[in-house]
């Protein structure tokens, strides 16, 4: 992977004439918009990194005229707050992205699934929706967007759980396949995109896919918003090109004493200082541990922090936020939490950590959805790299 120093970008929040971008885009054939997105190699910014152009293409290929566009604003990953900022600052860009998706797929209804904790944004969003619906009338695009407010459940960020909850059920992830693009909200083809992804789809229309691809690295093109918190003098939201090394990142954002960085929130990986140089932030080779895809949560910890406390905090989070339907996640989260406590308090031998690592590996292989599968990410990376802190 090509190395780059941390490069700041000012694209997302920069003023741009949304109306004009839409006017131009909606004149283009649908296939051309899809092609532009495919060319841009834009990948989903919600965490999973699915190519956005491909998702829209799949939904567009579905028959029938009832389709839905859902903006996933359930931002709940510990350490992410960029979607809130986007919705607060540039909601029209988000809606513009939804309109593009609607135009491309033929959907006529859309929803913003807003997490309960962001209710304070409702008045502003409702006002924006008025403007937006006026635009839709002007463009003669039959597309309306409603707000749907979440009930307070991290798992509802998972797209099928989100859909279940919109259908009046418990937010429990579904078996896949079928995928939402085929069988989503109320059984109809549905595009679920992250807030930030939708904005970038507008940006690709605005600057062109070629320009977009000049940023980032191969396989991880473009820029991304990072939510930076923890032991850093520069906490906040920063738009950076993808592909940077953690070393460069820490040089820019660390407090000089950074011991580890948690990339991707509680469900992401903990990278210790001695591996900063080899780890990059992007989508490629995510599984090998050398590059880490992320929804943008970056938490920095300096040497005054106990990694046991960090892990404990994550495990409590998972134990509460697991939907509880599948065995590996419901029981596994409890076992990991009780297990690290038992080791810490000397009720179990430190060798029990190996049993727990094994258990985490099973969770990763067998859990039904991304939540249960990714508990092992933080668990294993923290326990393996800071084993002594778990014991003493």
């Amino acid at each position, binding site marked *: 992977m090509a190395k780059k120093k941390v490069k700041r970008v000012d694209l997302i929040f920069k003023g741009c004439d949304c109306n004009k971008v839409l006017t131009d885009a909606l004149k283009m054939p649908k296939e051309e918009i899809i092609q532009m997105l495919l060319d841009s190699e834009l990948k989903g910014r919600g965490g999973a990194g699915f190519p956005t152009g491909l998702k829209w293409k799949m939904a567009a290929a579905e028959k029938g005229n009832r389709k839905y566009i859902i903006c996933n604003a359930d931002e709940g990953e510990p350490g992410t707050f960029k979607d809130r900022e986007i919705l607060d600052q540039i909601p029209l860009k988000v809606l513009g992205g939804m309109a593009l998706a609607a135009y491309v797929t033929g959907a006529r209804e859309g929803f913003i699934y807003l997490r309960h904790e962001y209710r304070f944004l409702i008045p502003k969003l409702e006002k924006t929706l008025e403007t937006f619906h006026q635009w839709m009338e002007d463009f003669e695009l039959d597309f309306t967007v409603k707000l749907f407010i979440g009930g307070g*459940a991290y*798992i509802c960020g998972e797209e099928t759980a989100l859909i279940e909850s919109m259908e009046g059920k*418990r937010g429990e992830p579904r*078996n896949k*396949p079928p995928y939402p693009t085929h069988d989503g909200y109320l059984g109809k083809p549905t595009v679920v995109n992250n807030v930030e992804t939708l904005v970038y789809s507008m940006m690709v229309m605005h600057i062109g896919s070629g320009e977009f691809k000049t940023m980032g690295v191969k396989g991880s093109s473009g820029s991304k918003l990072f939510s930076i918190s923890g032991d850093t003098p520069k906490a906040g939201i920063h738009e950076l090109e993808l592909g940077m090394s953690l070393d460069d990142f820490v040089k820019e954002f660390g407090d000089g004493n950074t011991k580890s960085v948690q990339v991707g929130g509680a469900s992401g990986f903990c990278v210790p200082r001695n591996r900063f140089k080899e780890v990059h932030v992007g989508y490629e080779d995510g*599984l090998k541990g050398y590059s880490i895809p992320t929804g943008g949560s970056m938490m920095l910890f300096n040497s005054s922090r106990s990694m046991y406390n960090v892990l404990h905090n994550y495990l409590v989070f*998972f*134990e*509460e*936020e*697991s*939907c*509880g*339907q*599948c*065995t*590996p996640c*419901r*029981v*596994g*989260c*409890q*076992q990991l939490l*009780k*297990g690290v406590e*038992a080791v810490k308090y000397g009720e*179990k031998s430190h060798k029990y950590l190996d*049993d727990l690592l*094994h*258990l985490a590996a*099973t969770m*990763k*292989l*067998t*859990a*039904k959805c991304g939540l249960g*599968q990714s508990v092992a990410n933080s668990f294993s990376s923290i326990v393996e790299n800071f084993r002594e802190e778990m014991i003493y």
Partner: protein
Amino acid sequence: MSEKMINLVIDGKKIAIAEGTLLLEAAKSENVKIPTLCYHEDLCVAGNCRICVVEVEGWRTLPVACATPVMEGMVVYTNSPLVRRARRDVLAMLISEHSTQCTTCYRSTNCELQDLAAEYNIDNEIYINLLKDKVFTIDRSSWSIEKDESKCIRCQRCVRTCAELQKVNALDVIHRGAQMRVTTFFDTEMSDVVCTNCGQCINHCPTGALTERRYIDGIWDAIGDPTKHVIVQTAPAVRVALGEMLGYEPGARVTGQMVTALKRMGFDSVLDTDFSADLTIVEEAYELLQRLKRKLVNNEDIALPLMTSCSPAWIKFIEHMYPDYLDHLSSCKSPQQMFGAIAKTYYAKKRKLDPKDIVNVSIMPCSAKKFEANRMEMKDSGYPDIDLVCTTRELGHMIRQSGINFKELPDSEYDNFMGESSGAAVIFGVTGGVMEAALRTAYEVITGREVPFEGLNITSVRGMEGIRDAKIKLENVLPEWSFLEGVELAVAVAHGLTNAAQIMDDVVIGESPYHFIEIMGCPSGCIGGGGQPIPTNDEIRKKRAEAIYTEDEKKKIRKSHENPEVIKLYKEFLGAPLGELSHKLLHTKYTRRERV
């Protein structure tokens, strides 16, 4: 539509199988059994226990066989080291939140979790026992069902059963994460919710979390009490299923051996619910005719269709869900209760017994019968019609406890009187049976001729479809029933409460085209009852049904009104069907209930 075939490799073997097939079924077709827990063929797929994981080449995770369809080019391993290790871990996790007191569990040796734990040699001590920090209650508030949360593995089979098969929704999942569990509305006791006591949840529970309330000890105590005259009656569906508890294949008819066993166990009199099933048919057929007359001749505002009332789960269902339509129910008590009422009056008199010394025990394929026996109104003789009810499963346990070598037992006949029965009564045990029995009698009463079906087998009401209907034209009727000349009697049969609800919804909007409807609370009727041996599935239900029809055909008497004991009962005691004494002893009324 020609099916598209999918090519894949399972455990090294290339196969082609129809698109849409699940890996679980594909493996089964290759004689590979993948372990399952949350999967049940009666129910929709949940995919939440994760025990059925398999390995697929090139996949990042292990998919579940029960919810993953075959895909072109897939290379699947059902028993790789990775798969075995994952399954062991999943089992170990389930066991860590499960009360593993197998030695004292009613479902021991008939538990899917126990079987798998043994198969995979699970070490109980790998992970921390999660039960220690939680408080669990055993809900014994219901007469019928016992719920022990500490044994629940959260497969949600009961939840899906209650929703999909029965449309009752007494149980659901609450909270999430570590707190997630299965319970009733705000943890209300089972006795106070919409639960119909059908026991289908018990039959679909892989462990001992849901079981019937057991009355085995009370029965032994009664038998051992010399001052008591203990009568046992056995329901039609028990004789074709009990064998499964005692080493026989599904579908075995063990009537004679069962009777012998009951006698050896010490019951003073071994009698047959089939006797009172015949009695029920006579009463109910006349009730139908009376209603038709009042409607067609007198133009009275009489509720039609008439609906059967033998299934206590159905009764409680309609009381909760359609309380405004209780007048559609036949006022006839169920055969179990009629039997009890007659036993404590006519039988007592004939045997010169004080009814207070009689203990009526019934063996039922049903858990709801336990509730029915304890309904306030079921003591018209001054004594409870029925004292103790146990299921087919409990009887299986009792026979084992008694040390009897069941398979070697000779056959015996039921004691008389109240031991004689017709084939019409036997088929009560299967969906459509009550209808067929009633038609055999009603048609003959109206026309003076036998029903016009080959061998008296009214095949149009037989079968396993959820709702079936039939029409019979009444011609050349006897003068007494001239108002029925030319009338096409329209009847329907439904089993499983979801189908019952569908029938009721038509009644509610006034579009039910029927005169008479048979409803059984459980899928396939009593042979699939909540008190029957576990497992119960489609294949097993079919075998039990076949056994029932064979039993019918072997009977000398095939029509209820020809049962000589029933004829004698009317002559010596009751007078006529729907007579005053019948009304007092054999008929009942119903209660409006809330929908909690």
